[in-house]
């Protein structure tokens, strides 16, 4: 449930109503930023947020994202090494 996608805030469109323009792969839509607005709205520009039904619900924590990706990369590389080793073993065994 709860389709949400990352979009980048590219402009503030209505300070009073807390509206900003978000962009996803070149597609723009005005979204409400009430849930992610702390301090001046300008500060949101350039930030990435999780967009759900026209609301920016949560700012994306780029550090956390990087950490997760690193874990994934490690796992992927470990597995690749394992597979290469297995392939090497197999080759040696003449399979």
């Amino acid at each position, binding site marked *: 449930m709860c389709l949400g996608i990352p979009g980048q805030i590219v402009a503030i469109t209505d300070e009073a109503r807390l509206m900003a323009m978000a962009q996803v792969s070149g597609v723009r839509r005005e979204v409400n930023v009430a849930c992610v607005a702390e301090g001046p709205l300008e500060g949101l520009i350039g930030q990435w947020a999780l967009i759900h039904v026209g*609301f920016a619900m949560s700012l994306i924590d780029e550090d956390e994202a990087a950490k997760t990706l690193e874990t*994934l990369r490690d796992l992927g590389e470990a597995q690749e090494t394992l597979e290469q080793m297995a392939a090497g073993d197999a080759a040696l065994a003449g399979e």
Partner: protein
Amino acid sequence: MKFASEFRDPKAAKGLLAEIARVAGQIGATREKPVHIMEICGGHTHSIFRYGLDKLIHEGVEFIHGPGCPVCVLPRARVDECIQIAEKPGVIFTTFGDAMRVPGTKKSLLQAKADGADIRMVYSPLDALELARRNPTREVVFFGLGFETTTPSTALAIQQAAREGLTNFSVFCNHITVPEPIKALLDDPHMCLDGFIGPGHVSMVIGIHPYDFIARDYGKPLVVAGFEPTDLLQSVLMVLTQVAEGRAEIENQYARVVPEHGNKVSLAAIADVYERRPSFEWRGLGEIDASGLRIRPHYAAFDAEEKFGVGYAGMRTEVEEVEGCACGAVMTGRMKPVQCPQFGKGCTPEMPLGALMVSSEGACAAYWQYGGARAAAE
């Protein structure tokens, strides 16, 4: 797509799958005696089938598809009430597209629209608000549907309407909450779950602690997960690891989006606008205590139930569940969709009988559409 494509990397997936296989082997999970992991959220169900994870994953891991699709669990009586409102003269009834095809006892919103009701699909409650501004002589009702993820958006829309003094906007509130049905499932004597994948976007709003009782009181692990395929695999791995290590904790795989304590503004808006109903009916699961929200009395002017005297504010009609529907058994993990005697016969996406065939997030619909189970059934 930034923050999305990176989490669809096949190489990372291979690593995760191998690791999952290793841990699953370690705890002795087999096809015959699998670990049962419930992905609560329909979005996760959708990802599993869209990326074919069910076929990639170690055979000792079995996904149990949970009740986390707000469209699927919407009871037929509630759809009837939507239509009752939508068919009132002067009403513009607005809804997310998902809800259009859900059958009521007589018809769906799609059919009601065909019969003449002014029903419009919107992308956001904000669009409904805008319609209300532009149509001052019409009554614009928004079909508020969804879990905690979506609840803040309708709460904020109601607050905004109140600020603007709009008198022709109201919400038909069907917001429901995730923890309560999970508790209900855990209390089910037939329950055979070993762990949970938690809905990431719900926790983005409520944080991860509302699930503490699952670990604490029931000794089951839960990992809050993102929706990309490696998110899901990583979360499965985290659940398995807890099982292997004999732990039962609430963990957060989706920390890039989910703050531990959720979103303050969202929670405040929910608290301002909504209160818990004593109980709410779930399709396939029946009435569940405190599982639904209603609009607080001081926002009664924006409550379509009050405004039109329907639903819990009016005469509620008891609607019998359809006969032969095994949705409850599927949602509690006792049965696979293909085991339901109706699957692909009395129940297809064209003409759904039970809740889980209704939306593409429903387990049965996903099995049907993506799963290849269809060929056998047809």
